[in-house]
């Protein structure tokens, strides 16, 4: 039976955890392999970019696209959180926008909302702006889940939308 890669992100995990799953493993079995802190009862599981937690009895192969034949193809991208939502604030050009996202929303998902829906940048400009965590120089990669970026007990994160700069001099 082919092994399926599961990429797990969550608050307190330093990196994206890579776990190996069998197609008929439950999410509870998979997540138990990760070194997670905090009480198990408080954990919520999310599929990447999908709003609302899923039951940890769900089976890995049933969360993946139906294969045309043979085994399901991964990876399965999961998020473990204690927050049901993350309140996202973005500043740009003296304006501010806020919206709630699932903690499993990727930085790219939030960036696209910010440039297209919140600040209405033309496509060329939109592609030249990225999210930077307020008060830092950290620009998280596009596949990072925003739930990993919250601090302490807060279910919130604040970004600045900043232009990509030329490297010269």
């Amino acid at each position, binding site marked *: 039976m082919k092994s399926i*890669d599961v*990429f797990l*992100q969550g608050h307190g995990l330093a*990196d*994206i*955890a*890579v776990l190996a799953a069998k197609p008929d493993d439950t999410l509870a079995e998979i997540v138990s392999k990760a070194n997670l802190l905090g009480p198990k009862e408080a954990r919520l599981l999310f599929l990447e970019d999908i709003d609302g937690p899923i039951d940890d009895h769900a089976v890995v192969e049933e969360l993946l696209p139906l294969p045309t034949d043979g085994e399901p193809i*991964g*990876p399965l*991208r999961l998020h473990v959180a204690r927050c049901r939502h993350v309140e996202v604030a973005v500043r740009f050009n003296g304006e501010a926008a806020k919206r709630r996202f699932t903690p499993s929303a990727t930085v790219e998902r939030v960036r696209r909302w910010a440039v297209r829906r919140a600040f209405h940048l033309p*496509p*060329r*400009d*939109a*592609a*030249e702006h*990225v999210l*930077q965590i307020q008060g830092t*120089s*950290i*620009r998280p*990669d596009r*596949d990072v889940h925003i739930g990993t970026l919250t601090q302490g007990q807060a279910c919130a994160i604040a970004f600045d939308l900043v232009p*990509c*700069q*030329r*490297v*010269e*001099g």
Partner: protein
Amino acid sequence: MSAPVSPDEAVFRAHLAGGRFRSGAAAGRWRLVAVAWPHAVFGVRAADGAEYGLRFECSDYPRTPPTAGLWDLELNAPLAVNKWPAGRDRIPLAFNPGWKNGACLYLPCDRISIEGHANWYQQHPSLVWDPAIGIAHYLRVVHDLVNSSDYGGRRAA
């Protein structure tokens, strides 16, 4: 019996097995082509589907940043300049055949290019080499460039 792996190669291979690298690889952003320590070759996917090879020199990884140049994956040789990425603003600065004879990319995450550019630590902290993230950071910087709106395909295309 296989030769023992040096400490720098061991860290490099651990980073290849880590989530940041494998998540990007699974998304088709980049792939490992070959490792012949201290060199490693990767392919990075651009917005138009073109794949750009990068050949890294990774001695003393990750304490010392690697340096990388564009690489022809078919010929296993430096990439001809007419096949380099084209653009109008950030791309021609980063992929500049006149910089060090085209041996490395003009980026803050590159070992050779950061030399003499102390200002980059202040101006571009997010692009400076991060040993905790490792090779995925350099690959991400290149992937972001060839998937930006400044990217205009290959020079001769």
